[in-house]
């Protein structure tokens, strides 16, 4: 059986037994997905690349403590969300953009860095959504996650995910209309 076909659990077991190549398989399987999640927070390609590397380093270090209570991908996405938020917090503190009281919704206020490449319409519209709506929508539509998993990743209820995805759809509709008329 080729290693590429092995499921995450087996790859993790092999890695914990000392097989570094299994970690490489996991890395290659999830790098783009994690990068996409991180990018939806940082809105900057270079920052996303750095944070994604940090995330995999963290995973490399703490895979021993992965309790297998949830799927590996759910755990990985959760780590990605948490580390992206910490990164933004750190960056916002460094730049001293706004006061501590506003930390809750800092993502919306965060000044975007200049993108390193042209954004397509999808990206443009997605980045206009509030952060949680954007992430719930990407996780659901791009990563193919069920509402239950998204709830675990974002640490909210399943009902909240329903509402987030629905509101994202409605907002995208409005933004598309706006875009047409421009």
């Amino acid at each position, binding site marked *: 059986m080729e290693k590429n076909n092995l499921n995450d659990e087996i790859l993790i077991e092999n890695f914990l037994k000392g097989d570094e190549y299994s970690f490489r398989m996991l890395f290659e399987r999830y790098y783009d997905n994690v*990068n996409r999640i991180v990018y939806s927070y940082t809105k900057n390609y270079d920052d*996303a690349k750095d944070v994604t*590397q940090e995330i995999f380093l963290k995973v*490399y270090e703490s895979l021993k403590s992965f309790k297998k209570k949830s799927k590996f991908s759910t755990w990985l996405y959760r780590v990605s969300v948490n580390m992206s938020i910490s990164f933004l917090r750190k960056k916002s503190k460094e730049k001293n953009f706004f006061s501590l009281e506003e930390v809750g919704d800092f993502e919306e206020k965060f000044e975007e860095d200049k993108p390193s490449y042209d954004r397509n319409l999808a990206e443009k519209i997605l980045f206009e959504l509030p952060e949680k709506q954007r992430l719930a929508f*990407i996780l659901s539509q791009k990563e193919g996650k069920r509402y239950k998993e998204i709830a675990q990743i974002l640490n909210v209820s399943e009902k909240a995910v329903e509402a987030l995805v629905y509101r994202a759809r409605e907002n995208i509709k409005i933004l598309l209309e706006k875009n047409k008329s421009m």
Partner: protein
Amino acid sequence: MKHIEKILLSKYVDGEIKKEETKKMIEDHLKVCNYCKDVYNSYININSLIKNYDVKSDENAYLAFVEKKVNFLNSKKSNFKFSFSFGIALVLIFLFSFSLTLFTTKRSISTTNKVSTTVVDKSFNNLFSEDYTSVVSTVNFGR
């Protein structure tokens, strides 16, 4: 005609409706209601829009990761070396101060012993003397 709640349609598009009868009710309604059908189609179109969202792939990502990992492991090693040497130094300082204390205590004990021996000798001599008050005071002093 009563329309389907949009949030329910959104769930339906994502295949998140678990009850078969609810699914059937939505499907039947979509066949006859143009308004809900339009909403449903708009949600489907939005889904196809997101398919275009992607972040450019980084071909050298794993190589960069390996480099980062090596640096991290090296810094961890040097941190361990530093902590280890620091720990050894602490143990040595502790042992030195402990032996120094032990040495001084031993010295003071031997001096006290000498003093007590002299006092006992004196009191012993007093026992055989005629002066009882002196014996009592020496014994009390001894206690």
